[in-house]
């Protein structure tokens, strides 16, 4: 008997609309998630997370770009660290960036709530592993 995978609620924070579109499409084609919210910068995402109206609809996983106007990925992480304990849900954060600068990668590693660093454009296998783990955790 096939157990239906629990729905994973994903979120992508990236000012590049084309990329966000592709990412959403990919998750849908690969049956990883049909529920992907997109924010164009960190500030909009923080507002969404903080809004009590969204408390029941928080993402399980966030894919975060680094370079964005208004509030970039680093600033988002700073704010996220501060509010995460009040969110009532464990949210995994993956950096999703085209930067291959070792300085950026090390900096991301040193942020406690960052679970991993994925290079753009995309690594389908890696995404599948990440979602499999998430579903495993959700099932428990």
């Amino acid at each position, binding site marked *: 008997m096939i157990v239906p995978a629990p729905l994973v609620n994903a979120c992508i924070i990236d000012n590049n609309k*084309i990329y966000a579109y592709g990412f959403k*499409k990919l998750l849908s*084609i690969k049956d990883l998630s049909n529920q992907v919210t997109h924010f164009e910068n960190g500030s909009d995402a923080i507002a969404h997370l903080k809004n009590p109206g969204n408390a029941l609809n928080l993402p399980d996983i966030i894919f975060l770009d680094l370079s964005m*106007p208004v509030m970039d990925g680093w600033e988002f992480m700073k704010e996220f660290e501060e509010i995460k304990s009040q969110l009532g849900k464990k949210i995994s954060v993956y950096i999703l960036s*085209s*930067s291959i600068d070792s300085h950026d990668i090390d900096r991301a590693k040193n942020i406690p709530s960052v679970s991993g660093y994925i290079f*753009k*454009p995309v690594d389908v296998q890696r995404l599948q592993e990440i979602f499999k783990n998430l579903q495993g955790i959700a099932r428990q």
Partner: protein
Amino acid sequence: MSFSEDKFSDDSRLHLAQIIDNINAGIWEYNINTRAIKWSAGFYSILGYETNEIECSNHIFFDHLLYHQDKAVFLNALSDQGTTPAKPIQIRLLTKSSGYHWFESTIKRQHDRNGQIIYGSIININQYKQAELRAARNDQHYGDTIRIAKLGSWEIDAASLNLTLSKQIYDIFELQSEIKLSIEEAVSFFEPPYRPVIQNAINNALEFCQPYDLELLFRTAKNHVIWVRAKGVPIINEYGRCVTIRGILQDIDSNKRKGLSLESSLNLLTDQNRRLQNFAYIVSHNLRSHTGNLQFMVNLYEETELEEDRTEIFAHIKSISSSLNATIEHLNEIVKIQTEITNERSIINFEAIFNNIQSAIKSNIEAVNARIEYDFSQSPQISYIPAYMESILQNLLTNALKYSHPDRQPLIKCHTLKERNHIYLIFEDNGIGIDLDRYGDKVFGMYKTFHQNPDAKGIGLFITRNQIEALGGTIKVESTVNIGTKFTIKLV
């Protein structure tokens, strides 16, 4: 013949002669009329001879004992008819065993019953003379060294604040005569910004016994501006108070200027290197992100079967293609800045060029109903690369229009300033401003955008900065969110 052999008429003379023969000074006597010559025993012994070991004669004295170069001195002294007692002369005489020594001889002239007599006493001054010559040589050496080092020494007496300057200092000051200078007068030779620096250093040395070593700009009496090194060391008494400051002043102009030009080349190189790195970053980051997206979309296109998805994906591919093109254009523009830098500069009229730009972007100005004021009277013209100036003014102007505040009429002010040898361009607006505490130096970075403005490309100010810096200028920004932004540009 010695003095004691002479037949003196009385006892006292005999007595005196014996004393003379026994002291270790040489006495000589010369009768001008008879040309007779007498030496005391001491004269022989002072030269290292036994009495009468050598013949006492004019011939021996002038041709053997007296150093040939000193003959003139001696003969002059003999023939000097002055009534005042002649000054002692210094001559070299050949000693028996140790070569020529320096001697000092007194010369006295007297009329005797035997005619006109000249007599004198000689003493060996060799040691002192050698020391004196050594000292003179050292002085010469010291003088030469100091001249080569372009160095002068000075001293300030702490109690009287009296300033003493060495001759070389006057050379550095290019003062004709060694006139007395007060501290204030000496300080006034330094260029205005350095006067408080040197004055404070002197005060601190006097008060707190602090030594100093400074490199300062100095204007000589002949109006040459040179770099000097001013070093002062306080001399401290047993109570720990400064009694004197002793110091040097050195002309280090040529070295300092070499150092400064080296430093400015280094800065230029560092700047260029930074720009190159930035360029490399743009190439790797921005092009990578476009090509990555392109690859992503192509893959998706292949994986999708739905026709409507394919249409949408293809539209995105087209959009990426044009972004890629735009980025390449931007990179081209940056490369162009570097190649255009060798273009001829020409005299540009600020007002004419500014008005041209205003009419070129007239529709943008009218769209936000902006009021634009300018005043280029302080510096109406500048020698600049025309294409750069157009680009700089246009970027700043479109930027100010793009980020105008929605709640008020945009007011844009532009003026030039002339300060010392520099020309500044000031550009102010009352727009939405930018949070510099957050973004700081990123303002001028490439593809850095700070507002959710769809027109923001993050290229204008990057290019503006590159153009300004390529011609040796600087650009600074001050801004307050919701109040406005002010750019201060040092053009040359």
